[in-house]
């Protein structure tokens, strides 16, 4: 197996996989049937990394897993290519609006195990799809999914992820999106679970007016470590990209945001913007932010911003003076803080799912 990346690599400076390398992962256990979210939406369900025909809907556009070798520079994607046994391929023909599909992973077992799902999503010209990707589980496991996305001209993919894995789990997701002219990739990840997690997104804007919005809300507590790493490559002129990353950190938790914007020589009139804001609810929480701009064109607009702070006590007092109990006042302000990152999620069920997850996180604090 390809070696895990070490902290010596610049891309892994803030996320140390040593705790992962110390665990020996055994055979994937037989899955127990989980409690799935109540919903009428079509669903594709994976239990311990294996597709469940029984629990999944039949979808015309869903195809079986197909194995590939991966010469990628990303070590985790290479490991995935070596180990992947299952996954789904979603192919939406030109001009079709395929609605919303739930992509669910549930994992549980008594002894540590690992699984490496491999998904492919291909949208034809002008096609659209919303994926609500939910990952949950119990116990110690390593979930190492790769999702490869290609969006043909004018296609639109909403990709909403709820990473609510077991608090003992490792979750390392790689997402690679190739976005052609006029196509839009809208991404939101809520990072709530896992002992150690990373979402790494590589988005390539390959045609004019291609857009990428990569948003995240990280809500961490205890000794959790959450990393949101993005690379947006502007390879064509006139492409906007936006990133809004909000982190709420309590206990001894640590959040990371690494955001790189690369602007090719030909990518004139690029409009790239990223903002990372962290709310530290404890004096022992830590946030590491590394923005990187690599610009080789001369007529571009690229900027980034970062703030780290505590809840504003004047705001807390204002709410309390109106009769709102302190805990509720703080909860309202935390939810408000996350608002900008969550705003693009418009699909009703997805929105309700994230609202409930945020509420639940806060209550379990």
């Amino acid at each position, binding site marked *: 197996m390809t070696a895990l990346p070490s902290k010596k690599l610049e891309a892994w400076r803030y996320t140390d996989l040593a705790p992962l390398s110390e665990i020996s992962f055994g055979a994937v256990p037989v899955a127990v049937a989980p409690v799935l979210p109540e919903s009428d939406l079509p669903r594709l369900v994976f239990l311990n990394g294996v597709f469940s025909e029984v629990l999944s809907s039949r979808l015309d556009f869903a195809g079986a897993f197909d194995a590939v070798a991966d010469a990628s520079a990303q070590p985790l994607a290479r490991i995935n290519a070596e180990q992947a046994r299952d996954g789904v391929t979603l192919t939406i023909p030109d001009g079709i609006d395929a609605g919303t599909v739930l992509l669910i992973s549930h994992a549980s077992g008594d002894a540590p195990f690992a699984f490496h799902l491999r998904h492919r999503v291909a949208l034809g010209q002008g096609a659209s799809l919303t994926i609500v990707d939910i990952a949950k589980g119990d116990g110690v496991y390593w979930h190492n999914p790769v999702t490869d996305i290609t969006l043909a001209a004018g296609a639109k993919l909403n990709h909403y992820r709820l990473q609510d894995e077991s608090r003992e789990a490792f979750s390392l997701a790689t997402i690679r999106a190739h976005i052609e002219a006029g196509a839009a990739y809208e991404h939101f990840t809520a990072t709530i679970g896992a002992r150690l997690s990373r979402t790494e997104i590589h988005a390539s804007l390959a045609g004019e007016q291609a857009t990428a919005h990569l948003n995240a809300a990280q809500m961490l507590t205890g000794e959790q470590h959450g990393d949101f790493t993005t690379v947006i490559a502007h390879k064509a002129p006139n492409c906007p990209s936006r990133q809004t990353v909000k982190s709420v950190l309590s206990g001894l938790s640590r959040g990371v945001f690494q955001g790189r914007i690369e602007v090719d020589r030909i990518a004139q009139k690029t409009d790239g913007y990223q903002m990372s804001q962290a709310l530290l609810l404890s004096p022992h929480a830590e946030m590491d932010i590394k923005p990187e701009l690599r610009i080789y064109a001369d007529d571009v607009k690229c900027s980034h911003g970062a703030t780290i702070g505590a809840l*504003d*006590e*004047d*705001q807390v*007092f*204002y*709410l*309390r*003076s*109106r*009769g*709102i*109990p*302190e805990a*509720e*006042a703080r909860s*309202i*302000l935390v*939810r*408000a*803080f*996350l*608002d*900008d990152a969550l705003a693009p999620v418009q699909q009703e069920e997805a929105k309700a799912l994230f609202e409930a997850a945020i509420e639940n996180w806060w209550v379990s604090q």
Partner: protein
Amino acid sequence: MLEIKNLHARIGEKEILKGINLTVPDGEIHAIMGPNGAGKSTLSYVLSGRDGYEVTEGEVIYDGQDILALAPEDRAAAGLFLAFQYPVELPGVGNANFMRTAVNAVRRKRGEAELDAVAFLKLARAAVKNLSMKEDFLKRNVNVGFSGGEKKRNEMLQMALLQPGLAILDETDSGLDIDALKIVAEGVNALRSEKFSALVITHYQRLLDYIVPDMVHVLSGGRIVRSGPASLALELEAHGYAGLEAA
């Protein structure tokens, strides 16, 4: 009825309030005036329960209950309302949701049934109309991007919805903005009744042209140094506070 008895308070080591005695009977509006640094803002914050102010002596009784022992939210439920001099902006918090949460929190504490979204909106829309506000007020984020006057109107809207028994209006420095003063005055005058009393804290007499108080108290050096009828405010306007500080 509000009774402040021998109230002493400090910030850190610095004593700001040095024994305030004051009674505001139900149905009355009292004004507190005084020079800069007299302790006017401190008094409003101590009454509403803000952190950072330590009460070292005395008590504040409202409707027979010592409110100094209560958290700010419990004071609100008991019927106190602080109109902020500089209302706080809450980005990401919708005005209607905020007010409904507040009204229901207070109703819960008072043992009353909560209002559902429809019932609340009906109430809020009526209050918005009464205060000559635009209806989009309810849809905006709390105070975000509001003009000074709009922020004041929003305070008065909250006051109208929460129906307090006692309003504390901190207008310490805002005496020069006539429009804002008129808005605050309309809000207070609309609530005037035998059950409602108010403490209006101001540096300038001008606010009292619009809210005629039953009594005026002069706060200086952390104590009430003079009390009198509304005409006392005019006297202060004419002669200033200079003569009083020695008293």
